[in-house]
């Protein structure tokens, strides 16, 4: 069976999943089987069939697993969001459609040779830093929950960080491909960019308070540096630099301290000062209530989960328990309703995606392509780790999105662009010479 046939079969399976899951939601909500679920499943299949046809025409030799895996991830997202809020579920579906359009657009635009991107590497670098700092520009940026992540232009809002990540990877792939030999020799002056990027990462933290994004981008940078040079020492030096910088920032910025305190001690036995209302409260009722409530949600799922539509997300008085449930905390919603079985399945899909992405990097024939695919895939894995790890109290919680699952247009579209780039690299690697 060819890669494309496998892709088609995978997409049909994903569409079936979507139909069944949506039917489950309507049964749980209205206690009746609704034909609309079948219609939505069919619509979902049609959407991905468009993507499939475009893939078949533009990148016929590309990996056949990536698109179906993406489809499954978006099913998890749409169904969970639809279950929480039908309107937002519809919006998310629209965003996925726009994401598929972006995928097709990128594939069509770059179908001849995506490597032209390499020549624009410095443009991407500058654009990446610009985008990262954009939320801290007065008048454009918006502060949400103490963190500057959003940019609004008129009625439109978007998170530039998602796009910045891809631009940064494009820049690094081009730059490191060019300089990897000289950097590997350890020539001191070539460390300039390394220090510059470290400085940029720190600047981003200071400017936006956005720990997650800084950690993500710096992690991608280190991974790509290692891939390009093979020098573990650089990674070690980078980690030391980052930790050193982070320690200084920890002492200097209250927001960072709070995040770490919440992470280490989410529960207190005594009442402590609560900055939210100025009174003495248990920390679980104050600063760390998001994390703690999310953990309760996950724990409530247990092994098998409560079942789709049966989870508890509102308190006894009807107020929403976990804020940002559709974005940052979507994993705790999934983990409650689908249990360990479902949450592990979701993580397994991420793992398979990572394996396929890295396989693309291994198969690629030129340095730029290898670095690009490895960077995109590692970034994908690291982003998953930072947000889900934050929700699971593995690392301090920082607000970034879960790729393809979280509610949010920018994130969905950016990740479809990431997928398009991976498919382009894969196609070229597998194309008969």
């Amino acid at each position: 069976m060819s890669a494309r046939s496998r892709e088609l079969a995978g997409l049909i399976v994903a569409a079936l999943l979507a139909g069944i899951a949506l039917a489950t939601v309507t049964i749980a909500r209205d206690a009746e089987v609704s034909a609309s679920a079948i219609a939505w499943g069919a619509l979902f299949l049609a959407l991905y069939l468009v993507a499939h046809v475009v893939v078949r025409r533009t990148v016929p030799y590309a990996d056949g697993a990536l698109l179906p895996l993406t489809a499954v991830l978006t099913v998890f997202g749409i169904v969970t969001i639809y279950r929480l809020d039908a309107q937002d579920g519809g919006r998310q579906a629209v965003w996925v459609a726009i994401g598929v359009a972006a995928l097709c657009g990128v594939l069509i635009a770059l179908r001849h040779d995506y490597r032209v991107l390499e020549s624009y590497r410095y443009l991407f670098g500058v654009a990446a830093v610009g985008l990262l700092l954009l939320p801290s520009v007065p008048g454009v940026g918006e502060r949400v929950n103490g963190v500057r992540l959003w940019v609004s232009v008129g009625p439109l809002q978007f998170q530039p960080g998602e796009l910045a990540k891809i631009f940064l990877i494009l820049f690094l792939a081009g730059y490191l491909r060019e300089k990897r030999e000289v950097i590997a020799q350890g020539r001191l002056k070539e460390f300039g960019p390394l220090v510059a990027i470290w400085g940029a990462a720190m600047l981003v933290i200071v400017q936006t308070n956005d720990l997650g994004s800084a950690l993500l981008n710096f992690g991608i940078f280190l991974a790509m540096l290692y891939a390009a040079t093979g020098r573990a020492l650089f990674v070690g030096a980078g980690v030391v630099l980052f930790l050193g910088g982070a320690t200084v920032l920890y002492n200097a910025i209250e927001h960072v301290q709070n995040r770490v305190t919440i992470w280490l001690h989410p529960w207190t036995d005594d009442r402590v000062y609560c900055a939210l209302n100025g009174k003495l409260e248990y920390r679980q009722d104050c600063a760390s209530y998001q994390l703690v409530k999310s953990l309760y949600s996950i724990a409530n799922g247990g092994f098998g989960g409560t079942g789709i539509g049966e989870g508890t997300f509102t308190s006894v008085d009807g107020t929403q328990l976990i804020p940002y449930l559709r974005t940052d905390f979507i994993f705790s919603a999934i983990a409650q309703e689908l249990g360990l079985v479902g949450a592990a399945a979701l993580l397994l899909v991420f793992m398979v995606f990572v394996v396929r992405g890295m396989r693309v990097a291994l198969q690629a024939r030129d340095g730029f392509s290898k670095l690009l695919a490895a960077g995109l895939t590692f970034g994908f894995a690291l982003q998953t780790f930072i947000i889900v790890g934050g929700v699971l109290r593995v690392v301090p919680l920082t607000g970034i999105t879960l790729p393809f699952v979280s509610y949010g247009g920018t994130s969905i579209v950016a990740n479809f662009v990431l997928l398009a780039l991976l498919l382009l690299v894969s196609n070229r690697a597998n194309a008969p010479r």
Partner: protein
Amino acid sequence: MNQQIVRLTYVALALVAALVVMTTYWQTWASAGLAARQDNAIRRVHEFSIDRGLIFSFTPRKRLARNRERVVGEKTLFFRRYPYGALAAHVVGYSTVGRSRTGLERSLNDYLTASNGNLSTLVDKALDELHGRPVQGNSVVTTLDLDAQQLANEQLGTNCGAVVALDPRTGKVLVMASSPGFDPNDVEDHYGSIASITANCTPAAPLLNRASAGLFIPGSTFKVITASAALESRKFGPGSRFYDPGYCTVYGKQVHNFADQDGPEVFGTINLVTGLVHSVNSVFCNIGLKLGAKAILDTAKRFGFYERPPLETPADERLASGLYRNGKLFYPRVDANVDAGRMAFGQERMLVTPLQMAMVAGALGYGGRLMEPQVVDRVVAPGGRVVEEQHPTLIRQAVSKRTAHQVAAMMRLVVREGTGTAAQIPGYTVGGKTGTAETGIEGSNTTWFIAFAGKDEEGPPQVAIAVVLQNQSGVGGTTAAPIARAVMQAILQRTENP
């Protein structure tokens, strides 16, 4: 470059694998611990999505606690209402979101939420869950006599105090009233109105169940225990003679008889029966000095002192009776640690609960048999099937039948011609003992009446009672005895014409 990419793959996979491990940790290992946490709002939603079992009075059969269904968000939740308000609030307790639970609502929570381990309940619950219906809890039928309970509340009025009435033959608690009371419907949203309740004592403590968790100086009611100890010791009989100079000498100091307007009474030479009938302190003081504190305390223990009375209400809403030192129950290592003379007539750091004294009166009336007090008659499944049924349980033979009969006879004399004549009920035989404990503040006595009553002297009594009132200027015989009489009469007449 491929080697590096392979290594990066391992790192990336390890990161996601770590998430699988941690998800497993939270969803299996840590799950139960998190579910049990007080601040877990999900747990609370679960609790309130159960169609909680109802709580009934025994006679007349009324719903003391029922549910009000409300759709909140996407779930149907059940919130408690208490149709009879303050009537049996201390026993039934309350179940709220903000202030947790008390009373039977707390101690029987497992039955009321169908979380008890009985097989039939497990099956019912599993079926409910399978059908997607709200789980229905088991209902509880209490032993309370609602009319007598109502009467007891009315009689207590604005006084601080308590009434406990039980059936000495079965231990079933017929009345458990504590004053001041509170309306459990106010606990959730109008807690301030409960906090501002005032009564004839400070603090008013309306939430406190004085019947089982209120500690009071027993005063002369304790003399029935001293008398029992004296008779059990065989060193004294009902005819033992005492000389009463109006006081008794303890540690070289004179302890006087209870003083009315004319100063301490002086009785001269009297026997034990007269001593109890007229509540002569010096008689019991001398018995105490002769027997020693520990001998009397050991008899008290046989009546249930020094242990929490076994009742279905939460353990911390019941207190043990006995000697208290610095707020803690204590039992003297040697006799010299306690002033046995004063303890013998119910002073000297002796503190008791009305429930305990009702048990004492019941056991003395019922031939020395101390029955386990029970306020729950049975637990019933939603379909009406009985899940659990209580049977009368003998705790122990507290004192010999002979001793019990002799003390009971003296107590009947108390009501016939002694300090307790206000408790006489025409057509019934009543035995009782008054108590007036001085708290050290003038006009602020704790007054008592404990009693049993039945059809005749031969048969077992149908009711035993303890009444306590705080901050009284009068004595037990005039303040507490009439309340005891009214409540007992209501119960006796109901048993006769059910």
